């Protein structure tokens, strides 16, 4: 009986989400064609209910199903991050989708189910659960990337994401088979025990398996040199979907990676810490350098998303609780600033001559749409990590974690990189405030886009000035 209750508590949030997801599918059928955004709003309500009902008390750990599934503060905080990403994306997407003629209930249903997959990824204590969760999320993402099937770019993004995703999943699976073959188990705790016992310490099979698995992970978090899919996918996907994709799946992949490397691979830290340190440096530097050369703001934000993954990786290799707490905080802040920026980007339209998101489209917007320009300015400054804003707090915590782990060189490289990144974020604001417009651009901030960007701006300012609220939220995290 005790066992049954524990099992139930460990899977309760996911069960709740599944039921709500199925209800959403039914609701989608019942709503009228022009009212499909209702499905999204119901999704927000369902997420709110789940978030309220499943909050574990501090230090509460529900590990069920033969130590395979865990619901604790860590899972909960990341669930809140996904829920916020869903909420902001849904609120901001309505006008964009309506404008492109793809306002369908499935957009919201699929996004909702992708969150379910992410929850399983984060809660998994076993590679099988992790893998099916990952695939649920990934398939949902392929569909979202290719959602605008009237547009070639979007279809291309969907197909490209699908092929690369399948390839990286195959690599991950291949690695898992090696790990399973060498350790005889798929459970994180047992893998850790086997590794600790030293029986397989010098075994090449384990090493090959881990390298393949970590490569698969690197694909999922778009770490350089496994990033080549990211810019095309983020640029091609419908803008709200791209905003969601740069935030939630990445946070989920990071959370799952944290669980896996901190629990299962803790004894093998000597193997993966150098690997991810190198990847972190490469990812930050390459992402920023290439972003400098972009003239399309959407593509620039895609490269900036790559470099942000690099910053988060610093928290991963710090190998201390501060590290993953900083990653959680960073993801939380990143939700607000990045989805905000993507929402504002989505409503920018020039009269169909060239790509909507060209840098030149931003010229002179400050005079025509002062509010729009101000919002974009705040998001850009926050992404760059300018001090009073939220982005700075996130970066600060990450670099602090690196300092604490005696990885000062990594923190220095990170700081230099954020200085480099200032250039391309500032360039957007310079275009908005100091350049004269070259052609007619329309940027009508509709109701839903206004709400999203307003929430984003308020949170970015609020967290910037009063960071304790968010820091307290992640302070008790333990993997």
């Amino acid at each position: 009986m005790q066992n049954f209750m524990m099992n139930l508590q460990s899977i309760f949030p996911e069960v709740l989400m599944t039921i709500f997801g199925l209800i959403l599918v039914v609701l989608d059928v019942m709503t009228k064609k022009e009212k499909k955004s209702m499905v999204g709003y119901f999704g927000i309500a369902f997420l709110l209910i789940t978030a309220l009902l499943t909050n574990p008390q501090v230090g509460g750990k529900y590990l069920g199903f033969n130590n395979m599934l865990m619901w604790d503060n860590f899972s909960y905080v990341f669930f809140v991050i996904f829920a916020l990403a869903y909420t902001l994306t849904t609120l901001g997407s309505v006008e964009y989708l309506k404008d492109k003629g793809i306002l369908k209930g499935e957009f919201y249903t699929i996004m909702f189910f992708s969150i379910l997959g992410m929850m399983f990824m984060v809660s998994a204590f076993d590679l099988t659960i992790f893998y099916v969760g990952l695939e649920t999320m990934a398939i949902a993402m392929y569909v979202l990337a290719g959602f605008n099937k009237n547009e070639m770019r979007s279809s291309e993004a969907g197909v490209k994401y699908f092929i690369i995703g399948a390839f990286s999943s195959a690599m991950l699976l291949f690695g898992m088979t090696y790990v399973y073959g060498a350790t005889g188990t798929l459970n994180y705790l047992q893998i850790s025990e086997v590794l600790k016992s030293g029986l397989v310490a010098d075994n090449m099979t384990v090493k090959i398996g881990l390298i393949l698995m970590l490569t698969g992970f690197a694909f999922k978090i778009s770490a350089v040199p496994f990033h080549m899919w990211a810019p095309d996918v983020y640029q091609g996907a419908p803008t709200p979907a791209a905003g969601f994709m740069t935030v939630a799946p990445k946070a989920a992949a990071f959370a799952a990676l944290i669980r896996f490397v901190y629990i299962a691979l803790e004894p093998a830290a000597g193997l993966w810490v150098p690997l991810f340190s190198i990847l972190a440096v490469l990812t930050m530097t390459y992402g920023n350098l290439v972003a400098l050369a972009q003239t399309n703001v959407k593509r620039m934000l895609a490269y900036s998303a790559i470099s942000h993954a690099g910053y988060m990786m610093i928290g991963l290799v710090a190998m201390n609780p501060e590290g993953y707490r900083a990653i959680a905080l960073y993801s939380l802040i990143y939700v607000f600033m990045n989805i905000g920026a993507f929402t504002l980007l989505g409503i920018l339209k020039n009269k169909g001559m060239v790509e909507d998101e060209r840098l030149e489209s931003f010229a002179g917007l400050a005079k025509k749409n002062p509010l729009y320009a101000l919002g974009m300015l705040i998001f850009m400054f926050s992404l760059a990590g300018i001090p009073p804003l939220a982005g700075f707090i996130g970066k600060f915590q990450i670099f602090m974690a690196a300092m604490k782990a005696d990885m000062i060189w990594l923190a220095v490289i990170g700081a230099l990189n954020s200085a480099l990144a200032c250039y391309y974020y500032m360039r957007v604001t310079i275009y908005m405030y100091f350049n004269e417009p070259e052609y007619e651009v329309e940027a009508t901030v509709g109701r839903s886009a206004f709400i999203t960007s307003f929430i984003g701006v308020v949170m970015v300012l609020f967290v910037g000035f009063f960071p304790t609220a968010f820091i307290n939220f992640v302070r008790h995290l333990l993997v």
Partner: protein
Amino acid sequence: MNEIFMNVGFWVLGITAVVASLFMVTRENPVHSALWMLLTFFAVAGIFIQLDAEYIAAIQVMVYAGAILVLYMFVVMLLNPKSTGFIKVPAKVILGSVVALVLFLQFVMTLMGTGVIKSAQMSGMNLPEGLSNVKAFGAVMFTQYIVPFEVASILLLVAMIGAIVIAKKD
């Protein structure tokens, strides 16, 4: 004696699988490719049987050789490609393959040196008392691994919704 038969069987199946997959990727006619793939599947299924994994072998034949391949054939027939014969391989690709082959042999030699290949001796599985292969598989699947099994149903649901959204005409 049995050992020798097993070994001969393994080499025949293994070489068939490798050769068939090579032919599969070098055909220009997709129908021929698909047929070579069928042979690969059967050879791999044979290897699974040798490893005492009859269930996986059966699934391999039924799902891959049966369902997936038929689907491939449908798509290929619908697209109706015309070309036949080999894909024309440019010289630099051949050069690249040679380099890759040399590297691969080097990897194999290094791995042999560390004793990985030796340590990865194949041995039969220990089945629980009184359960056959498929039964043991099912017992674990529906007790210990019930959660991933159920999550897979959600995965399929999402894939189905997604496929309908992408493929349906507005």
